[in-house]
């Protein structure tokens, strides 16, 4: 069993736009790794390469061992014509027995505090609740790797804190390898046990460090000098 998921000498370009050039990084298994970078630096591309939906032009991904990662998108991406419970069951179908799937779904809906809403349609839920369903969908999926693509963007601070707490609560009970992408420093420090800072495209790894309470202010200082997150469009 690998203890690392690693990207080795990855290159990827879309036409003349070079996103990655000879890029390498390693993510520890069963930890939450946060990738921080200005928007447009290739964070989503990185997740899609890990997900297997995008092939790198050069280089390889190691340590995946054929596993299919679960995904939390920026938007909830729920089927509007299926109830909360049916939305979760859909991704489990064919991967386990029906009663196992039901049990799992009930457990994760409980963990995100949505047990009473199992029979509701997405249109009946608030934005934060929908994103919690999306979180439950990723965690109930039989995978030990979860990719998260700025899932809290567009939500207000209170909802964001709520979701982060939901996330931490599930993760403590059922730890997984999580690779979490964001351009919000506070969020990254709060969620990530490991912190990776990317430059603007073509992305370079500016910093990779463990995030422990003792070095948070140092990390904050470092990140602020390395990249300018307040004006993410500037290179």
């Amino acid at each position, binding site marked *: 069993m690998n203890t690392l998921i690693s990207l080795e000498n990855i290159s990827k370009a879309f036409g003349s736009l070079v996103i990655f050039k000879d890029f390498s990084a390693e993510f520890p298994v069963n930890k939450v790794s946060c990738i921080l970078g200005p928007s447009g630096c290739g964070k989503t591309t990185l997740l899609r390469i890990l*997900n297997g*939906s995008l092939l790198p032009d050069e280089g390889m991904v190691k340590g995946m061992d054929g596993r*299919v*990662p*679960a*995904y939390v*998108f920026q*938007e909830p*991406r729920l*089927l*509007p*014509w*299926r109830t909360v419970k049916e939305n979760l069951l*859909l*991704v489990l*179908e*064919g991967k386990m027995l029906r009663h196992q799937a039901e049990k799992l779904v009930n457990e994760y809906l409980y963990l995100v505090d949505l047990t009473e809403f199992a029979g509701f*349609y997405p*249109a*009946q*839920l608030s934005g934060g609740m929908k994103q919690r369903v999306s979180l439950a*969908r990723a965690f109930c*999926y039989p995978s030990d790797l979860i990719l998260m693509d700025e899932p809290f963007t567009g939500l207000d601070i209170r909802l964001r804190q709520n979701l982060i707490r939901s996330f931490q609560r599930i993760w403590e009970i059922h730890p997984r390898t999580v690779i979490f992408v964001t351009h919000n420093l506070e969020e990254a420090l709060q969620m990530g046990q490991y912190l990776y800072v990317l430059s603007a495209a073509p992305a370079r790894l500016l910093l990779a460090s463990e995030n422990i309470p003792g070095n948070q202010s140092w990390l904050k200082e470092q990140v602020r000098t390395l990249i300018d997150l307040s004006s993410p469009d500037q290179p």
Partner: protein
Amino acid sequence: MLRLTDKKSVRETAGYLSGILVLLLIWHVISLWLDNPVILPSPAKALAEVVRMFIHPGFYREWLFTIMRGLTGFLIALMLASCIGLLSATWRAAWFLFNPLLGAVRSTPVISFILLALIWFGSENVPVFIAILTMLPLISFGIIDGIRNTDRELLEMAHSFRVGRWNVIRHIYIPSLLPFLFNGMSNAMGFGWRAVIIGEVLSQPFRGIGSRMRDAQNYLNVSELIGWTLVAILTGYLFETLVRKAEQKLMRWKSVSS
């Protein structure tokens, strides 16, 4: 909340009814003024004719034949449209082939098909053929639009969670194309009945509303002609309502709100 909508629907129904009443009144006045029941019978007389038709057992036989033709045409059109829609949405070459063909069929006057069909087929088959040609483009374009409008983000989600192909079709493609399909089908029902009856009038099969309308016209029996017309309107309305009811039933998730 419920009472308010009830009140609103009551007011709406009352509005429709009074509209119909005013039209009947105008009809009545014109018939009185013309004073010639052969040219224009009074609404009461036309209604009496409809009632007389309804209690005559032979009427249902004629009606049934027209309904069977319309439904046969509809089902065949639906099956063909499903194949064409599926092919066109998944295979570009088929789209380039079918798009101009369906567009041309949609713009062709019904009468051209009837005249051609009269040469090609026996009179019994003309109305069904016409029904198919009228409904086919409407339903096909509905299906094609539906497939093309499927949310790419949901498809990407299903792909990344490795949802099986059959489940993607059943739980993403079909529910997203349903509103488009139903829109196409209720349009098809509206145009289809008219086409079937025109086909019957001109090809004169043994039984059917259109054949009886032609007979009534030959004998200058205006009240019977109006009676059959009312039956034709009723038929179209009935089936359009059926389609809409089926749609509401299938898309209950749309009517829920927080």
